């Protein structure tokens, strides 16, 4: 089975406090810790496990700048066979449709049975997989938390729906799946693993190689655009307890007693 996994380099929200720049044009990026999007890690792991079971290869692809190469190497250290970087100034400012358009072009250059994305990334949009599938006219399932690959032309997938219930479907290959966290346990990659793939050649394609006209991607083509980041005016918010940790605990215990939070 030939598998393509689409991944993204994102600020690690578990590691960073996100601060908005004074003029709202961006978040403060100087001291951010970046990593591979959490959902993509599960997608890569799933692809590797499928390949190990039924044979084939795993290719990871990302749309990004030169620094995005590090997430490709990380996924290759996990066990992906190949990496492809899609990078061009013309891609900047693309909306979800723009990113899906770029990915469609690389899909068309290969021959994949299965295309995986993460269910969502740092913008919480959860859009690229579904858009890519529709552009390619391939069947799609989102929020996939189970993949059963047999020998036939269809596979069985589970989607996670409300309440943690699982919706089982049969889906024809080739198809696009967006992967939900928890589907597997992504393997750990150490420094040594990354070193091993440090010198592997990663081909880079720009708009020209992909046959993309500049007006189909990037800011010019985007119909959905971020104007600025802002901090909304919130309601009162929580009463923040001040003082030493002991003082906070004493105050909290009083409050908990009043609210029936203690036996």
């Amino acid at each position, binding site marked *: 089975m030939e598998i393509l996994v689409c991944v993204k380099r994102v600020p690690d*929200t578990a590691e960073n*406090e*996100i601060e*908005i720049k004074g003029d709202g044009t961006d*978040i403060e990026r100087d001291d951010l810790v970046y990593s591979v999007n959490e959902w993509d890690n599960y997608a890569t792991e799933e692809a590797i496990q499928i390949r190990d079971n039924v044979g084939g290869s795993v290719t990871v692809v990302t749309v990004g700048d030169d620094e995005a190469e590090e997430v490709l190497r990380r996924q290759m250290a996990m066990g992906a066979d190949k990496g492809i970087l899609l990078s061009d100034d013309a891609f900047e400012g693309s909306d*979800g*449709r723009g990113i899906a358009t770029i990915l469609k072009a690389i899909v068309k250059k290969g021959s994949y049975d299965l295309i995986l994305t993460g*269910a969502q990334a*740092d*913008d*919480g*949009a*959860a*859009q690229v997989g*579904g858009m890519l599938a*529709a552009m390619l006219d391939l*069947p*799609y*399932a*989102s*929020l996939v938390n189970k993949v059963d690959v047999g020998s036939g032309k269809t596979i069985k997938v589970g*989607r*996670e*729906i*409300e*309440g*943690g*219930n699982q*919706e*089982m*479907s*049969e*889906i024809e290959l080739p198809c696009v799946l967006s992967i939900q*966290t*928890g589907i597997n*346990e992504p393997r750990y990659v150490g420094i040594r693993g990354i070193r091993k793939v440090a010198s592997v050649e990663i081909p880079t394609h720009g708009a020209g190689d992909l046959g993309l006209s500049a007006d189909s991607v990037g800011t010019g083509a985007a*119909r*959905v*655009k971020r104007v*600025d980041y*802002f901090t*909304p005016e*919130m309601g009162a*918010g*929580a*009463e*923040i*307890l001040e003082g030493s*940790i*002991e003082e*906070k*605990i004493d105050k*909290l*215990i009083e*409050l*908990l007693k009043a*609210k*029936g*939070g*203690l036996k």
Partner: protein
Amino acid sequence: MAQIFAYIAHKGGVVDDSAAELAVAARKIDAAAEVTAIVTGSGGDVDKACEGAAKLYAQVWKFNHADLAYPNAEIVRKLLTDVLPKDGIVLIPHDTFGMDLAPGLAIKLDSAYAPDVVGIDGMDGAVMKVVRQEFAGMAHAHVTCDTAAGAVLTLRPGSFQPENGAVSGSVTDKSGDIGDITAKRRFLEVVEAETGDVDITKADVLVSVGRGIEDQDNIGIAEELAEAMGAVVSCSRPIVDAKWLEKSRQVGTSGKTVKPKVYMALGISGSFQHLGGLKGSPFIVAVNKNPKAPIFQVADVGIVEDILEFMPALTEKLS
């Protein structure tokens, strides 16, 4: 002004809360719009759902077909692509079905797509101004969406307060317009989530831990605190993904809906999927080392501390 449509989610004919929220969102786009509700389904269910939708929308389009009995996004997408005008504005709830349907629908209608919208600021010509969140709710963004060639929006559940006041809309049976809805993805069954050894939905007090617990070995610290408080341990999703606690202890849209009196959110950032599982206005105590964590916006009491120091100290004080 473009025509506005709202996709009505329903279960067994009972319309979802999102149906009323979409109606409110539509009025924010165009206060005068006659919004059309789209109801798909089969048999008695779809009739009942249409009745529910007609209390919220002036016009209801009914699509009744055996293959629509269970909402399969591919089938519904094909149907909507056939029956909707290309330049309309289509509102869909940002739930697991909406996430499955909407991105592909936007492509097939060649419309702009604005996902997970939490606010609508109105129209400026054909440009809609909406509010979204990024970075796990840690930043808000003003976003423009060019609707000139149509737009599909998914709206975050709970973001638009439903208004009172029922209408009595008319239902039009459009089932005759259903074309080819064969799909390459076929629904098989729903497997219900497993029930665990404890029922967190019955607990009055929950000690709930999130990714801030950092390590499986620290789960015991939360268990000790729960013991001292007479509470039950619950958690956010990453703890279940890591297999540190069972799925039955997960609070949120893809976990359990809980209604405790007191909810201790410890090292939980406060994502909308997590908070979606919290009902009945509990007294929320948030402990987080990041003073800007979104959880402090919804909590009653906030404590900025490291939970790995705070929890043992609280346990000790209580024992």
